[in-house]
């Protein structure tokens, strides 16, 4: 679990470099990604199912990004965009197209539906995360504008 945490941190951090995040924020980008992935893993361990695990993970991720953004006085986008990468259904896209080509319609529809469900769960997770009122986060940076 700790190994997974560290590796997901490095994975997110490297993508933050690719999108030219400010150097001082790289560690925080890595941290948000790692926390999101950790929540996802815990969800999977408790048999939440992929969709619900993704939803809780994105929700946690969004809240954490907002907290860090408030403390560090930077746009939320920086942490959210990089942190979301471990959860984006890249594997789903791959398996869906793979089974489509293999003409295995059972597996194709299984993975296709799952990819759509995961994407939907991510959408909901972010939306719930942003539904929390900004005033809760504003308390974290009184010196802001």
């Amino acid at each position: 679990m700790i190994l997974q945490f560290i590796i997901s941190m490095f994975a997110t951090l490297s993508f933050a470099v690719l999108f030219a995040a400010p150097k001082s924020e790289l560690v925080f980008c890595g941290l948000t990604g790692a926390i999101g992935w950790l929540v996802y893993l815990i969800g999977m361990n408790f048999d939440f199912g992929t969709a619900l695990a993704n939803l809780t993970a994105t929700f946690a991720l969004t809240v954490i990004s907002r907290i860090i953004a408030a403390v560090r006085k930077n746009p939320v986008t920086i942490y959210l965009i990089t942190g979301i990468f471990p959860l984006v259904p890249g594997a789903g896209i791959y398996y869906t197209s793979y089974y489509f080509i293999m003409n295995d319609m059972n597996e194709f529809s299984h993975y296709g539906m799952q990819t759509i469900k995961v994407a939907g769960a991510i959408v909901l997770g972010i939306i719930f995360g942003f539904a929390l009122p900004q005033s809760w986060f504003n308390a974290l940076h009184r010196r802001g504008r």
Partner: protein
Amino acid sequence: MAVTKEILALAVEMGDALLRNGAEVYRVEDTVMHILKAYEIENYDVYVLSNGIFASANEDRDDACSMIRHVPLGTTHLGRIAALNQLSREICSHDCSLIDAWTRLDECKSIPFGKQSIHVFFCGLGCGCFSYLFGGMPLDAVISFFVGMLLQLFLFGLKRHKNSKFITNILGSALVTLLSLVVLSLGAPILYDKVIIGSIMPLVPGIALTTSIRDFFNGDYLSGAIHMIDAILTAFCIAVGVGAVITIYRFVMGGALLA
């Protein structure tokens, strides 16, 4: 008289820079409005789309002016967004005169991307890590690391030719698939699907998806739809690239099924 124009130009230019580097519509609109307000323009309208800005100020007075900008979807640069955000904070707290703001804006816009070699290395590192996270063995991660580095080199090469995004994504994912199948054919005991999944991560439309959701959430349905279509088409292109190479591989290997 010319002051209104000057202020509006600054505000719109700033919005332009933000949008170009991948900020979401809400932030751009908010920033433009705050700057106009900070320089004491009361009567203004701002409408931002994910690829355009429309703004007008002091419509009912003699010095009325309006501006339209077309902003093509570009590459995301988070560092510039952060710097611009900082600048807009300073303008709003009146720490920054109009002339200073222009020079600062130019500085923000010219924050460079990192060195290519650094990008290549980190792309590889990211791919390797993701390959491991998605269930690959350490060996898969190592292969993925090299495939990812090659992918980034390839993307830099393509950039010079101004190819469309579709072609870039199709060719990129095809290259990744090809490389991992070649490694497999050489007899290395890899889980080639984990290698592919890890290495296509730099192409996967995570940013477009996130931005799109945030646009929807803020009620900018049109901009959200633009980004959503972008995300879906990118995913589709990746699928095409991966699929084409696997089909050809099967054909060449005489229909031998991949594990």
